[in-house]
């Protein structure tokens, strides 16, 4: 069994998959934050590639994307950043989250080569629905790099079955309509929707979009195998940009990371002070 499936299986029921944008606010900070996520118990890392036109993302991740683009981040650089994370001790699976145009310009074959070279485990393309992803899915299967599929409360039963039948790694269940971002409530149909997915899916199902508090996590935990958290984490990063800046001294950076760690532990898992 590959590392991805092994992590998914071992943590089934309590998957925690954080999303961060590569290069936000800098390459070194991204490595530090990834390692911090591993300490928080992350079961995999979604590494977001910045795009000029992130149509599936809300304002928090849009801003992160702009910050990362200003740093000159690209898909290729992000993959070498993943390699650096490995060198610094990151063990959990890394999923590259990229809009399709960015992947297309690098080239799908080239992506696979780099994924092997940089020890990347999976791929998620938010604007590539099932109907358009046939070729890439075959390539991913051949290369043993799972292509994570998304499903939404509005996904019809017929499509849900098709998608789930071909899915690998885990199923990404979108909690609500709209874009990524912190929100108070989920789609009213979220629980029946998760039930539908769970009945059909042989692999773990995780819920994302708007999961930002321990209340959310608790409300969802009996209905899925885990959560994906993006904007809530990126917002914490945004709050600490100045301290995370690599030009500042090490002590301040450590303090900022510690502060983020405690805030997120409390916010997402209702856990008080733990040692980092």
């Amino acid at each position, binding site marked *: 069994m590959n590392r991805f499936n092994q992590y998914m299986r071992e943590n089934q029921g309590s998957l925690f998959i954080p999303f961060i944008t590569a290069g936000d606010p800098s390459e070194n900070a991204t490595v530090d934050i990834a390692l911090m996520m591993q300490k928080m118990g992350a079961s995999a890392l979604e590494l977001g590639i910045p795009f000029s036109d992130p149509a*599936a993302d809300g304002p928090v991740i849009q801003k992160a994307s702009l910050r990362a683009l200003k740093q000159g981040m690209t*898909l290729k650089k992000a993959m070498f950043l993943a390699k650096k994370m490995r060198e610094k001790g990151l063990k959990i699976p890394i999923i590259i989250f990229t*809009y*399709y145009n960015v992947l297309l310009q690098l080239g799908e074959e080239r992506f696979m080569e780099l994924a092997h070279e940089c020890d990347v485990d999976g791929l998620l393309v*938010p604007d590539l*629905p099932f109907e358009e992803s046939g070729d890439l899915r075959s390539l991913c299967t051949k290369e043993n790099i799972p292509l994570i599929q998304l499903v939404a409360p509005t996904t019809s039963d017929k499509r849900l079955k098709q998608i789930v039948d071909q899915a690998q790694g885990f199923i990404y269940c979108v909690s*609500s309509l709209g874009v990524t971002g912190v929100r108070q409530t989920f789609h009213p149909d979220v629980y029946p929707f998760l039930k539908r997915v769970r009945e059909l899916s042989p692999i773990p199902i995780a819920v994302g979009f708007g999961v930002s508090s321990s209340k959310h996590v608790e409300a969802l935990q009996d209905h899925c195998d885990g959560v994906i958290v993006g904007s809530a984490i990126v917002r914490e990063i945004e709050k600490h940009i100045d301290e995370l800046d690599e030009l500042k001294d090490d002590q301040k950076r450590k303090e900022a990371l510690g502060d983020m760690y405690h805030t997120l532990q409390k916010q997402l898992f209702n856990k008080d002070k733990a040692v980092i």
Partner: protein
Amino acid sequence: MIEQETTKQPIKKGRYGSFGGRYVPETLMFACEELEKAYEDASKDQAFLSEYHSLLKEYSGRPTPVTYLKRVTEQVGGAKIYLKREDLNHTGAHKINNAIGQALLAVRMGKNKVIAETGAGQHGVAVATVAAYFGLSCKVFMGALDVERQALNVFRMRLLGAEVIPVESGNKTLKDATNEAFRYWAANVEDTFYIVGSVVGPHPYPMMVRDFQRVIGDESKEQFIEKTGKLPDAVVACVGGGSNAMGMFYPFLEDDVALFGAEAAGKGIDTEEHAATLTKGTEGVLHGARTYLIQDENGQIIEPYSISAGLDYPGIGPEHAHLSKSGRVTYRAITDKQAMEALGLLCKKEGILPALESAHAFALAIEQAKTMDPSQTLLVCLSGRGDKDVHTVMQYLEKEGAIHESI
């Protein structure tokens, strides 16, 4: 002659050759499928079609005439030049044809809220207009920079009862307004209809918008035969996203008529300030479709430039991408300067002030007509009137120091 495929309905998933498709987040798949189904039903329903055509006639004033340009033809000295007068539509441009069609479909689907993206504000005004007519609530997304630059159209939309939402994300222009409209649609698909303004976006939009604009080409054929006894030898239209051009070209695709599209070369295709997507762009995926884009090697979209706000879009309708690759349509890039000169000529010789977008088509038409024989004919789609551009033209001429000689 081109392959059959070019002129038929998209064969699969809205493909035009290798272009088009439906590259949208899963949250929008349901909405796209629902729209596809609703449009398929509507397009076969005679009652729907006759209501659409009757509104074109009684609300927008169609058919728009074809005008022969006697004095321009004499000066240019080549093919006889004719204009299809989309500028004479209600609200002053071809945009209303599509807005009427999609608003009718929204009503048919029981959706009483419509949204739209707009760059210069022409599509926004057309949508605000039909929303008022049908009693629909209307939100128009517009880049914050464009809101500043196009104060008059912003006020016009508000006067028509629409809410104009300035978009602060990205570069604050048309592509960002489009992203924001997609985001809003994804969150509100259950009661909201997105009226896309051009032959862009995920399937079925490029097909549907083309169908709602093909009245331009259909009327032209009939009128031209009536006037001259035959079809024109060449047809010219401008392309930003490409809706007036697609509507004009589509009925001519299987005829022996040369087709030309004018895209914006801005300050020149050798500068970085242009919107020449087909001349300079590369293949990619944006706003739901595979097409040519102005982008960097890493797949980041580059903000295009043209003096004409309706042409500075970094992509192009996927059917145009296909027609360009297959060679059926020839696309050429026209600079700001060429467009301005053409605009001046049309004003002085014929008393017609074209929109800056349409001036690009007219400039290409002049170039083309020169190479043709006086026995031949050329039809230009004058997509809109230029009243909205008077301020821009004035600024341009002042800057060029040409204002005095021009007046």
